[in-house]
């Protein structure tokens, strides 16, 4: 039998705890706050470790397997470490028609990484994302919480400088 080493137990900060408890009050059942809790923890720690899954399960009163089931289902919960900034490039149809591929390639060349990878200095992780609802202004991408539209390959250098 293989028992996964889940590392040191993780203690949630009091801010994390109170934010999760606040979210729990919005629903008939605390389990519904699973995504909120994952996002709260991810906001502080960039990604969700096994130990964080356990801590969330404890506070919500559900099994760690259930929390992990939710965490692994959604595209934007990260179960592996990511860089300080996450670049999400829309690769859906309207952005395809307006040339996202050139933008995507330029980012990969500039940073020297492929989609799914993180730069050696931990600064950027690059991922694809589905339609960002900015199809009239493609190519569109999201860096952390900022949506950038009508992006051209030549803007990439300057754009990335904004994210130290």
């Amino acid at each position, binding site marked *: 039998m293989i028992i996964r080493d889940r590392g040191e137990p993780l203690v949630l900060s009091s801010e994390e705890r109170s934010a999760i408890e606040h979210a729990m009050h*919005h*629903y*008939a*059942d605390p*389990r*519904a*706050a*699973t*995504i*909120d809790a*994952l*996002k709260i923890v991810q906001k502080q720690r960039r990604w969700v470790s096994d130990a964080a899954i356990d801590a969330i399960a404890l506070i*919500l009163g*559900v099994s760690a397997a*259930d929390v992990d*089931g*939710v965490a692994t*289902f*959604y*595209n*934007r*919960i990260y179960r592996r470490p990511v860089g300080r900034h996450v670049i*999400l490039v829309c*690769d*859906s*149809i*309207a952005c*395809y*028609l*307006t040339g996202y591929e050139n933008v995507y390639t330029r980012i990969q060349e500039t940073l020297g990484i492929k989609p799914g990878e993180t730069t050696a200095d931990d600064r950027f992780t690059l991922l694809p*994302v*589905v*339609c*960002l*609802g*900015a*199809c*009239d*202004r*493609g190519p569109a991408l*999201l860096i952390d*919480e900022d*949506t950038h*539209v009508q992006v051209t390959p030549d803007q990439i250098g300057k754009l990335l400088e904004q994210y130290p």
Partner: protein
Amino acid sequence: MSSELNRGIQTHRETHPLTWRISAAGGPVVDLDRYIALEGFSGLRKALTLDPVDLQKLVKDAGLRGRGGAGFPTGIKWSLIPMGPDAGQKYLICNADEMEPGTFKDRFLMEDLPFQLVEAMVVSAYAIGASVGYIFLRGEYILAAQRLNAAITAAKNNGFLGSNILGSGFSFELHVHEGAGRYICGEETALINCLEGRRANPRTKPPFPQQAGAWGRPTIVNNVETLCNVPDIVLKGAAWFKELSQGRSSDAGTKIYGVSGRVKYPGLWELPIGTTAQEIVDLAGGMQDGLELLTWLPGGASTDFLMPEHLALAMDYDTIGKAGSRMGTGLLMVVDNQQDIVKVVGNLMMFMARESCGWCTPCREGLPWTLKVVRAISDGQGHQGDIEWLQEMTRFLGPGKPFCAHAPGAMEPLQSALKFFRRDFEKGIRVGN
């Protein structure tokens, strides 16, 4: 930077119920006083004087159909919810997941006019007797989340939301629930699973959400744009709403249409439902210089392609349905003649395969395999029989076969592309094997 709205048309209070306030204010209306000055919450004031069941009937008589893609009559959906003193806890959910590629209307409505959706949800909750509501918002809509949360707080502080709304005795609590990115969350039963903190696999229907939805309670799920129509229907009546389509369609109301792709001025327009696709493309300035329109999708990535000759058709549910496609979300996407249609289909299929929720085998296995074959053909590496095999897949994954409507939706662009552009697929088949 906001989407371009209503470029080249005049908007009026009577004819553009969903967007006139933005034009009147010259931009987003995110301040409560401003919204009230633009007749905000007058629909709610009137609604609270009426009987909920009469409100349901009013929405039915108005002929409002769901703007989330399927076009189901909203009043009929509402009439299926149990009413009366013994009905117990009920929920109203606004579907603001908007992940259908090519669709950007709900984002705009929420960012630029958040109070309209808040008002619409209070009126709709009153009509169905729901005491708690959720706006199920996709996590990438960060500005929309900020503005909706601010609007909810302001509405609550001023008696438009919370307990005993405007002294009527009706109470309603509203929360924004942010998702974490999965297209399937837009399917209403998957959405409910997501809301409950589960993996967002769809549920079997029946029971329908109206009977047993969130936490097993009766639940109504409606799209953002659908709901935003409700306050003015209450204020101005069913006959007014029907006339909004100006006789262009048997459907009622206006529709927020949009155009993306390489046209001169992509954007959004609120127009009478049944406006022709050609008129909408013309408002977008037509194709960019040097390009021609090859084909177009009428309402998102899960609708069938239509050809240039279909541009003359009225953009309503029945007309586009009869032409072999679906109006879907009503946001047109035009494909220009410099595109390789097989690659375009490959891009759509990549999205569909990635976003399969994995619950049922035909979709989980069938979509990636279909993608592989389409990609091989676009690389010139297709095999004899591949086209016939793809056609077989469009039947295997068609309506009623997989567990939900995702896989059938995925097959729509493929089946229509095989019909209209078979030659292009044939070119990618290697000779001699």
